[in-house]
């Protein structure tokens, strides 16, 4: 694998750039098709004030032909310039800079907790009797079906409004992170547990497991050394889906828990039709997606020894 790493990275980089370019292009033309940008900047109250339109159009370069605007946008993005927010009239990079960390924090802790919950559920229930499995299946389906924001309100009502264990808003360190993390992690765990248990049960039926057990290996030892690795594979494959869930869920969960973050910024920007910010968030999401996919591909050989063999071949 290591021999081909540079080639692998180069390929990844090229497809990544292609995906990003696609995201930029689609966002740009979707936004211009959605209506006059000047209306968005001025809002309905001022959109018709005489003289203001022309000045604003000139200031934001919206009076130029669309292809020119598009090329200009590509050029400035290439230099890392995301433009200025219509609403806050400050650089988008500054606006988003302070919001990335809280979202990343939430998404990572939700991914970890979700994986942990799924692992626990998998290990406890795999290969058990019918009743246990039916019970957990029902649980998992419920967990998957529950929308994160609804779960968030439920958690808030119970653990904040009634029991008062956790704060209802704000980033009070760890205690402020618990409920939003759970709201995101539980639906995630539901899905991951299902696919992981399926894989685990499949693997535990393989001859190599039987022979290992016959040699005196405990189930726990087997789990840690061999079978869980197999179970992790489909979870890794789903990492793109997981990411999508986390980003989409974070938007809603951040609103319910009044947390700062990209979700809050995005909702706010969409409401005010602040297109430079919306585009930047879309591009950022695409970037995260590309990076995560690349990481997942690099993780396969680490988890699964067989893949190392084939990639060397």
């Amino acid at each position, binding site marked *: 694998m290591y021999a081909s790493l540079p080639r692998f990275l180069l390929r990844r980089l090229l497809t990544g750039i292609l995906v990003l370019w696609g995201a930029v292009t689609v966002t740009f033309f979707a936004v211009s098709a959605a*209506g*006059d940008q000047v*209306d*968005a900047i*001025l*809002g*309905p*109250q*001022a*959109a*018709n*004030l*005489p003289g*203001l339109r022309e*000045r*604003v159009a000139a200031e934001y370069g919206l009076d130029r032909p669309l292809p020119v605007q598009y090329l200009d946008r590509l050029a400035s993005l290439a230099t890392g310039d995301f433009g200025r927010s219509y*609403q*806050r*009239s*400050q650089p988008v990079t500054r*606006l988003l800079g*302070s*919001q990335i960390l809280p979202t990343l924090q939430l998404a990572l802790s939700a991914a970890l907790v979700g994986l942990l919950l799924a692992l626990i559920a998998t290990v406890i229930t795999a290969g058990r009797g019918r009743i246990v499995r039916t019970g957990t299946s029902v649980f998992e389906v419920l967990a998957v079906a529950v929308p994160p924001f609804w779960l968030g*309100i439920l958690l*808030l*009502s119970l653990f*904040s*409004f*009634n029991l*008062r264990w956790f*704060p*209802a*808003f*704000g*980033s009070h360190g760890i205690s402020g992170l618990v409920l939003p993390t759970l709201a995101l992690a539980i639906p995630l765990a539901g899905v991951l547990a299902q696919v992981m248990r399926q894989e685990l049960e499949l693997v535990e039926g393989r001859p190599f497991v039987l022979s290992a057990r016959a040699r005196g290996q405990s189930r726990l030892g087997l789990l840690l050394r061999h079978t869980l690795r197999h179970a992790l594979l489909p979870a890794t494959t789903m990492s793109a889906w997981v990411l999508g869930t986390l980003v989409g869920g974070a938007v809603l969960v951040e*609103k*319910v*828990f*009044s*947390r*700062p*973050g990209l979700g*809050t*910024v995005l*909702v*706010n920007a969409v*409401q*005010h*039709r602040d297109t430079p910010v919306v585009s930047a968030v879309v591009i950022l999401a695409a970037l995260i997606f590309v990076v995560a996919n690349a990481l997942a591909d690099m993780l396969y050989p680490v988890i699964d020894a067989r893949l190392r063999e084939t990639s060397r071949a």
Partner: protein
Amino acid sequence: MHSRRSFLTLSVGSLAVFGLGSGLVACGEDSSPSGTGGTPKSGGSITFATTAEPDSWDLHVSVSTLSSLILRAVYDSLVYQKTDGTFEPWLAKSWEISDDGLRYTFQLRDDVTFHDGTPFNAEAVKANFDHIVDPATKSRNSKTLLGPYDRTEVTGDFSVVVHLKSPHSPLLGALSSPYLSFHSPAVLRANPADITSGGKFLVSTGPFVSSSLTPGQNAVFTRRPGYRWAPASASHPGEAYLDQYVVQFLADDAARVGALTSGQLDVADQIPATRLAQLRTQPSIKLVSRETVGSPFTYSLNTTRAPFDNRDVRVAFQSAVDTEAITQGLFQGVYSSGRSVLTSSTPGYDKSVEGIWGYDRNRAISLLEKAGFTATDSEGYRARDGRRLSVTLAFAASFTSEEQRNYHTALKDAVKQVGFEVVLRPLDTPSIVQAFATGDYHLGSGSPSAIDGSILRTLFYSSQLPGVGGANAARVNDPEVDGWLDEALRTRDVAGQNVLYGKVQHKVLAEAYVLPTFVSKRTYGVQERVQGFALGAGNLPTLSEVWVS
């Protein structure tokens, strides 16, 4: 949802057309200061939740009610408007208006300083007004409030003359609003573009200092030591009681109410009407509310398009709707029915219009028959010359609240009873801008907030069409109405203005240019321990008078 709430207009009236904005400014009958127990004491802090961060932290740029709500206690004004609509000195010790109404001379207090130590003086006033009218500021609301502003002349260290291009009697009211208050000249010089991002860049003269902002989360304001220039009628003239107040942005209604009832908040803004009954049963929560100042939620009948170019059809439409019954049915007594184009708590409201219009089904039917709508088509609607009696109601889909949509539906049902069809036309923002610019609609709706009767000019003056920044959605072109409104601009005493505003209210209702409906309220939920929480001019809480027990 909160973007609908977070917009207001004072006289940039297109809002009336688009139905944005729940109102502000008020002095209602059902308000009572919260808490009466004990002697006020200094110290403590409160956490106050509102729905969102304002659109801009620069009051000169913002069009949101939220900025004035959050920053009223940070920014002082030249004059103070009392709840009866009259004015008293604040940062201006006295003022004089020239006979032609073109020059306003203000004598300023000489003992006022900004939070950064910069003295408040004539130059500071000039720098701020110049900042508002500077095209680079892109001010909308504040600039409109200044009216036909020409320039500010510094005539002494503490004396300024504001020159106008034409008489504009609403100027004093405008000067009492937070949107025409003052940034420190030092900030205006060094970081004018940063004011909009808030926090440390908000430097003014008020009883609280903006000390920090966590974007999207909260803003912290601390007591200004040495504050002693509150208006005379303030119940607490000196330094604020509270050490600080924290404004928390909680967009979710359920989260805001839940955080309040569980004691994690001291004050919650905009309690939804649906949660009021539940909160009334909670002994530890007090509810403080006031009716909108400005207009009720009002339908405008486009007088330039058939069939509403015919007065009989307009009066028939107005008479066909039992607004009292619909308001009662939809809002269960939480909101009242408006009887004029101004709400009853708006200075300038004319009570005598209450009897001149109202629900009268028989009158509606006979007027429609008189207008020739005698046939009935297959769906039961009236028709004339084979054409159905049908009108469209255009509204901005994303800025129309659930309550307003429900009213649209009730209206549609009500006029159907007399064979009148209303077609609801929800539009996106560019389309609604287009429709109102070109006059392609029969009905518009909205509830603009205001300070006083001067909003009538934005609503009914012939040149204030929605296409050019006004809110004359009925497209009224009535020389008599224009005459009264022009005279009101030249009339300096409030009583004289109100007589003229009364005439306008009579005429627009008698001519059925409009159909006023419900008057909404803004309700704050307040913890028992918070004392002295009251709503002043503009329905804004007077935070400097709040203390905690």
